[in-house]
């Protein structure tokens, strides 16, 4: 059809007759690149024109950039991670040698490694900040329940991705961080045994390292991709949050311009952090000597502190159960708090509770840090 239009022949119309370009564009836009739906039965140009004739919501603009920012960071992680995987060897005897060789011998190896590390840190921070913003903005009300729960689950899966990544270099810090982190996960009923089953044991040996690797490069990334997909599809169904509504309509050009601005800013930030604040490897791990100051990663400091602050009589699985109950309560928040969606001024109790929770969490992080000696 399109190919015959006016007898004009262009590459696009040639392809259009053989591939559903609109469907491909629509798939890409599913990951938050275009805040509008495309009619996949129409040729690309027509579908785009139609989608753009409707006003676009203010998109990819502060403060609504966290979703798209986290997805771009995920892409950065996937690309840099695949590059690292060209050299990395997932066995206890080879791992440390291979990562130090990436940093020492491979051109740009340090940069790729540091970008991967910093992108992981930023991803977790942004996913956490997004949950905080959803909460204080009351953006978990009617028909946004799924978005809230997806945000929670995405954060947890991302922490698992980060956790499995930290063991891979098999350096002392990564190794003992993982030992500490597993003390926390082992306390969780159901999740602890499941995780131990998945990684093939409760110790840290070569088999466990290889399984951490597979979880790290295949399982968690695919899960994250699926979660992002669900998140954006839910946003396109229920619309962007109306709470922080900015100026109304925009053209596609403006939206793309905003996106490019974000990418430029992000890559600048990543490169700056990677070059000026490198987080270098520790010495090779020695499973028979614990270095001072071994502590869980930052996102597990508060759960660690909570687990350790129960009176000694309380068995560990009960403490873990308490943690899990807390998580489930927050996960189901949209069904517990029916006043969400109202302006912050109209829900002072929820705002006060949230602020208190943040304070307690911060105090627990402080405590978790000081449970262990200096590094």
């Amino acid at each position: 059809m399109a190919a015959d239009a006016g007898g004009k022949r262009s590459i696009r119309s040639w392809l259009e007759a053989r591939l559903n370009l609109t469907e491909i564009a629509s798939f890409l836009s599913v990951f938050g690149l275009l805040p509008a739906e495309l009619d996949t039965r129409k040729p690309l140009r027509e579908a785009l024109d139609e989608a753009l004739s409707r006003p676009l919501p203010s998109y990819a603009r502060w403060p609504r950039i966290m979703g798209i920012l986290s997805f771009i960071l995920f892409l950065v992680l996937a690309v840099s991670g695949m590059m690292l995987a060209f050299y990395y060897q997932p066995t206890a005897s080879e791992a440390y040698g291979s990562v130090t060789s990436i940093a020492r011998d491979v051109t740009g190896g340090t940069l790729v490694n540091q970008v991967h590390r910093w992108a992981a840190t930023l991803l977790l921070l942004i996913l956490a900040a997004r949950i905080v913003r959803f909460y204080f903005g009351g953006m978990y009300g009617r028909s946004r329940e799924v978005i809230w729960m997806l945000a929670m689950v995405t954060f947890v899966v991302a922490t698992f991705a980060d956790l499995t990544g930290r063991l891979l270099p098999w350096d002392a810090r990564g190794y003992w961080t993982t030992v500490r982190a597993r003390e926390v996960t082992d306390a969780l009923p159901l999740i602890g045994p499941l995780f131990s089953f998945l990684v093939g044991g409760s110790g840290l040996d070569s088999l466990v390292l290889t399984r951490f690797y597979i979880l790290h490069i295949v399982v968690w990334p695919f899960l994250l991709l699926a979660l992002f997909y669900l998140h954006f599809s839910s946003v396109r169904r229920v619309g962007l949050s109306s709470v922080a509504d900015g100026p109304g309509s925009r053209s596609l050009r403006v939206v793309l311009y905003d996106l490019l601005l974000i990418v430029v800013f992000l890559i600048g930030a990543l490169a700056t952090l990677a070059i000026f604040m490198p987080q270098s490897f520790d010495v090779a791990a020695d499973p028979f000597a614990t270095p001072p100051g071994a502590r869980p990663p930052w996102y597990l400091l508060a759960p660690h502190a909570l687990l350790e602050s129960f009176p000694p009589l309380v068995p560990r699985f009960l403490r873990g159960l308490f943690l899990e109950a807390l998580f489930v309560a927050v996960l189901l928040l949209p069904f517990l708090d029916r006043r969400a969606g109202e302006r912050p001024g109209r829900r002072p109790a929820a705002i006060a509770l949230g602020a208190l929770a943040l304070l307690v969490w911060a105090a627990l992080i402080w405590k978790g840090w000081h449970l262990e000696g200096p590094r």
Partner: protein
Amino acid sequence: MNGPETTSIERRGVLTWLIRGFLAIWALGAGVLGISFLKAPSSEKRPGERQLRCGSFSTLAIGEARLVRHGAEPLFVVRVSDSQVTAVSAVCTHLRCVLKWDGDKGTFQCPCHNGAFDRAGIVLSGPPKKPLPQYPAEVRADEIIVHT
């Protein structure tokens, strides 16, 4: 009116149930197979392999302990007397740090939260609650053998 349609529908009903049955069985089988495949082979060792050789007995002074660098559960061998040797786990029962032998005090010290254990693995101080697990140990031709 029981025409040919009814029988073919009936037959199709049977076929549908058969297909569902097969799919259910296969799904179950695939699930069981998948889970048992993921279950890591147990590291349970044959009797001969459970004997860990922990070095010479005579070079270990009386009252001294030596760290045996072994697998996920490192252990200490302690020479308690002229002829006797004991073995305790070297993993702190608090949060799994590997203990250090302090020869001056004759105790096991934890580098993490200052837990301390005596030669027999009894908690002396610090956060640990449980004593260190013991392993049977013996001396054979000047070699310390620990049964793990």
